[in-house]
């Protein structure tokens, strides 16, 4: 039996809207947030959709931020304003505000940026509104014929199945539900839209009943990892010198991490490109459009599943010279911009 929730049944009348919850750091949208808006804009042209950037804050939004989101491709900003909403997102504190935004503007897709509040808020929102959820997905537009809803183009999401055994294609029109997804970190185009866009404000009251309270907060040393477009994961068995020499050549936005020390941050990442060096079987949640490279030592080392590009190096070659060579090669990523 298919059960369509009352919320979504009413929502279908208002398709198609693409909602992008923005991740602000020091008052500025992150690179992956701008990329997510750009991606929304890209498919919105095909689908005839409206792109809403959702900002959650405890104060009025800065005009420069609105302009930045407009340039990235947002048609409108939806500001959820309320006490405590400037803090990092939790379902208990921010979930009701996001729910209010979704009730105001019923979505076809909700697209969280990499490194944002996707894992904190996305699954809960999907559970509440009966939506599909994709923890890491690519957004694609297609002109394939199909049973389109009125005014809705064909916008689909693709994600890996478990163990990268294949792709799962999620079409919100076909499944008759919204899809909530986390997009990979990517590079935003410089200007897709206009600076002058409207800001709609939703006044959000604090959730009733304080069930989660903050005891302490400090800067997260690994905060840059989930924002990286290119993640280089290094087997700690190769030693600290390998980490240091490889990282020394990495341009901005290419992040070199210890497979074990930063395991939690890596698990929260959705990079576009992953390079695994040494014994790094599975390091991050990538997307089908993403690329996975591996540098393995010796002929017997087992390659990660679904690796795209493989370089096998003689085990005897592992050493300072090779680490520096790898570090220098990473600088090539700088030409496209990394974050």
């Amino acid at each position, binding site marked *: 039996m298919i059960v369509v929730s009352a919320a979504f049944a009413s929502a279908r009348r208002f398709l198609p809207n693409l909602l992008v919850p923005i991740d602000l750091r020091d008052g500025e949208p992150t690179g992956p947030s701008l990329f997510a808006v750009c991606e929304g804009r890209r498919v919105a042209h095909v689908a005839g959709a409206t792109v809403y950037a959702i900002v959650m804050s405890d104060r009025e939004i800065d005009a420069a931020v609105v302009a930045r989101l407009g340039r990235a491709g947002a048609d409108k900003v939806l500001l959820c304003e309320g006490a405590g909403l400037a803090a990092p997102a939790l379902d208990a504190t921010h979930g009701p505000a996001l729910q209010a935004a979704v009730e105001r503007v019923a979505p076809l897709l909700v697209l969280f940026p990499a490194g944002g509040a996707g894992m904190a808020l996305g*699954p809960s929102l999907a559970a509440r509104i009966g939506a599909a959820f994709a923890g890491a997905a690519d957004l694609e537009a297609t002109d394939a014929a199909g049973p389109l809803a009125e005014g809705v183009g064909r916008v689909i999401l693709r994600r890996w199945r478990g163990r990268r055994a294949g792709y*799962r294609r999620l079409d919100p029109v076909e499944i008759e539900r919204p899809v909530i997804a986390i997009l990979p970190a990517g590079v935003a185009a410089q200007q897709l839209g206009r600076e002058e866009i409207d800001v709609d404000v939703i006044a959000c009251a604090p959730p009733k009943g304080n069930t989660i309270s903050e005891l302490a907060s400090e800067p997260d040393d690994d905060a840059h990892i989930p924002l990286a477009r290119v993640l280089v994961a290094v087997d700690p068995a190769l030693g600290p010198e390998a980490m240091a020499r490889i990282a020394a050549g990495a341009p901005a936005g290419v992040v070199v991490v210890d497979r074990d020390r930063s395991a939690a941050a890596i698990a929260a990442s959705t990079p576009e490109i992953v390079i695994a060096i040494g014994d790094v079987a599975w390091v991050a949640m990538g997307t089908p459009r993403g690329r996975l490279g591996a540098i393995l030592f010796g002929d017997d080392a087992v390659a990660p599943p679904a690796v795209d590009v493989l370089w096998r190096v003689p085990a005897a070659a592992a050493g300072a010279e090779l680490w520096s060579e790898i570090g220098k090669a990473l600088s090539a990523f700088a030409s496209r911009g990394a974050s």
Partner: protein
Amino acid sequence: MNIVVCLRAPPPGPEADALAGADALALAQALNLGGDHQTTALLGGTSMEAGSLRLAQAAGVDRVVRVAADDMAGSDFHTIGQLLAIALRRIGAELVLTGVRSDDEGLGAAPAAIARHLGANYVAGVEELALVSAGTVDVVARGGGRKRRLRVKLPAVLTIARGPAAPAQRPPRTGAAPAIEVIPLSDPEATVVRRRTELLGRLDPASRGVETVTTVAALVAALDRR
């Protein structure tokens, strides 16, 4: 306190008796809490998929429970969350721990569905966990560029991103390991609304080959090719 660790059914094959890495972290955090608590391992699946429950038994949990329901492998996270929430309510769970993205498809969405059906708090990506008092836990989680210590009222569902820094040494079990209890959810009391969301998404084969290169520059160029 009643602590429950939700385990996933391992995929068939050579790793059928392995505990998923993410689940192992959740189990380690639960066992590390010590104290006078009951720790239960819970699995939704068939008797053929109970390998991870046997590993939890060996690790020292007090109780092991398998939820037997029709076609859980073919259900989406909404249905799995609802089924497990029914079982968790019967067990009387106050604190529920799961792995991050621990379901077969790597979504990490079932814990949020469980929390919704239990009316529990939900916190993703917990790295440290400590019991403060009956009904309250302290956790450390990252997000929005901050690393925060939070006080969370129970009931709560937490996804665990890191194992304990110093795993506690548990004394060897005295007596037999607990038998696997089965909660059947095919009785009329447990009305499950089966939904279809993900499962209607189409499957495509992963048809990419491996490109072998002989220099690191070629590797970088091949990865960044568009």
